[in-house]
């Protein structure tokens, strides 16, 4: 007589049990409450001050977007936890079988290592969703204050943090399977994370391909989602990286294969992933889900820009670390790329900081070229860039649509009850649940 439940469900049951008795996961849950609380209370206080609490003048526009003012800082606690705590939970779940010897028994079942690592990943993602109940409870608290919540941007933000957690799980799983000992896996996982920070730093200083590569690091991914922007290339690259991590983990988790074969298979996974990532970089679809349309020009401008079909070349004489270049990128070019796929941007500078180039005649100039015509401007604002493009294309600038302008959602309310919830109730609940569940499952 065989068990009526399928082996896969037994495996899920086992992984759930292993997660529930994992101290690392309970510590993650315990830490999540105060971290989210600290961020949320600080964000709500600042938001209230900007909204006019304590006699300060009322603010307008993007400053009063809950996405930027409250959700981005509140959910940033998830990023911190994903970097510093989640790897330990994932490594514990993946390498535990090898450490205890259970892998030798389980591998005789014949189930593919890929299916087995998929089961572990599903359970880890489930565990991460439980941890995300903390920021979700912050949303409910915010709504109870009378705050505004715009579902599309919240969904995007959540998706970004789920992808980021997926990246951590993929990386940690790969490291836990490749290495013999969990501590080595933890060191390597954190080393890769630090490596991505170094890449971001080099990208900020060197620009070019470094900057492009830095745009696909987990930190950059989360930053985009925190602004309500979902880019197809970023999402697909993140998914390729997650699958590559899990694939590598499966290659090294399987017993009975010699090292040479594993190395060949790993190289195949890496090559396939590299090819897929390269292909994904050519995709430029994106969706601005923010209520404030912070990643887009006004709709009237976007309609006008879509009428301009020729390739637009922009040559900006601005050094990598010149703050005007950052302004130009964030206020105009990042939005322009989303509307005009034929846009080519080139930065020209002799140094990375540009401090000693200020006296050069052409420094600071931004040249626009369209259909053989050229014009120059020094403006780095969205309005200045659009004006140059319209004049070059001979298009009449559209009239400003006052009704479409995002006015923000001011809310001058203190974060009442948040301290009790995040510093008291959540840790207490976690501790009590942890003790009860560990006792129940042992």
């Amino acid at each position, binding site marked *: 007589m*065989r068990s009526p*439940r399928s082996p896969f469900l037994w495996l899920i049951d086992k992984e759930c049990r292993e997660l529930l008795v994992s101290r690392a996961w309970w510590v993650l849950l315990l830490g999540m409450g105060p971290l989210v609380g600290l961020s949320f209370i600080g964000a709500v206080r600042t938001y209230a001050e900007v909204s006019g609490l304590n006699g300060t003048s009322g603010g307008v526009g993007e400053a009063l977007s809950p996405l930027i003012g409250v959700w981005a800082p509140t959910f940033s606690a998830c990023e911190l936890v994903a970097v510093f705590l989640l790897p330990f939970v994932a490594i514990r779940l993946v390498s535990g079988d090898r450490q*205890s010897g259970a892998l*030798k*028994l389980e591998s*005789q079942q014949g189930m593919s290592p890929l299916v087995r690592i998929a089961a572990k990943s599903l359970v880890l993602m489930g565990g991460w969703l439980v941890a995300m109940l903390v920021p979700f409870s912050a949303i409910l608290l915010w709504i109870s204050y009378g705050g505004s919540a715009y579902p599309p941007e919240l969904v995007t933000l959540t998706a970004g943090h789920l992808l980021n957690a997926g990246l951590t799980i993929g990386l940690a799983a790969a490291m836990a399977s490749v290495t013999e000992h969990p501590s080595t896996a933890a060191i390597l996982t954190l080393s890769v994370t630090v490596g991505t920070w170094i890449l971001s730093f080099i990208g900020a200083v060197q620009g070019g391909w470094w900057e492009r590569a830095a745009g696909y690091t987990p930190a950059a991914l989360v930053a985009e989602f925190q602004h309500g922007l979902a880019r197809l290339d970023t999402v697909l690259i993140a998914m390729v990286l997650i699958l590559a991590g899990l694939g590598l983990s499966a290659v090294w988790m399987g*017993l009975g294969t010699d090292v040479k074969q594993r190395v060949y298979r790993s190289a195949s996974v890496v090559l396939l992933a590299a090819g897929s990532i390269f292909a994904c970089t050519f995709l430029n679809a994106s969706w601005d889900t923010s209520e404030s349309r912070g990643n887009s020009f006004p709709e009237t401008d976007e309609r006008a820009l879509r009428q301009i079909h020729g390739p637009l070349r922009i040559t900006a004489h601005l050094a990598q670390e010149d703050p005007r270049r950052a302004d130009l990128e964030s206020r105009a070019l990042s939005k322009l790329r989303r509307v005009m796929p034929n846009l080519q941007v080139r930065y020209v500078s002799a140094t990375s900081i540009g401090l000693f180039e200020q006296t050069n005649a052409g420094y600071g100039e931004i040249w626009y070229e369209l259909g053989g015509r050229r014009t120059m401007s020094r403006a780095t604002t969205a309005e200045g860039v659009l004006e140059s493009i319209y004049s070059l294309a001979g298009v009449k600038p559209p009239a400003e649509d006052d009704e479409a302008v995002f006015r923000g959602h001011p809310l001058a309310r203190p974060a009442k009850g948040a301290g009790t919830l995040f510093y008291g109730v959540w840790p207490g609940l976690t501790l009590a649940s942890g003790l009860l569940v560990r006792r129940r*499952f*042992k």
Partner: protein
Amino acid sequence: MLFEVKGLSKRFGRIAALADVGFQVRAGEVLGLIGPNGAGKSTLFECLAGVLPSDGGAMHAGGRIVDVRARRSLLFYVPDGIAPWPEQPVRWALDFTIGFLGGRAELREEVVEQLDLGELLRQPVGTLSKGQRKRVLLGIGLLTSQPALLIDEPFEGLDLRQARDIAAALRVHAARGRTLFLSIHQISDAARFCDRFVLLSNGRVCGEGTVSELAGLSGAEPNLEEVFLALT
């Protein structure tokens, strides 16, 4: 004959752990794999079970080569010295064996009784003593459904009484037609319990057969210890 192993070899760098190992396993027998520490007994079992890649050799059954994947329906290997799922209770480990490893649920109560696991059912595997853990591992092995069961050091960590009880339990399962292939380094245990023997020394098979067959081969007295000393 249940299966035959031919030319099995395994190297760890410069060290040949197994060299051209070959022997036969007959259906329903209790076969003892005996040899000193470091002879390659565990390596042989792991290669057969496919949890360690071998460098050469093959397993044959019914006139065909049995690849690693197909071996999973033929044999199950119980390693020595592991504590699987240490945080989970014994009860769950047995249920998991039935559910995930395709074990036989109808044997559960019998195995629990035979191995005296009743009082351990609620205890996490990781908190058990060496002997208790060995009994749980044997329970896991006995619940599996493959016709051949390979057990690495089944009596390791057990006291005399437990070893005798467990030997009796294993005998019951062997009498029902289950083939037991046991790696044993204690010659006296092996002599008491096994029908036939494979003698392994320095990764090579030095002899295969019953005590009298081996005695004939070595010219020693029909005593397993003497045979072992003469052949290894």
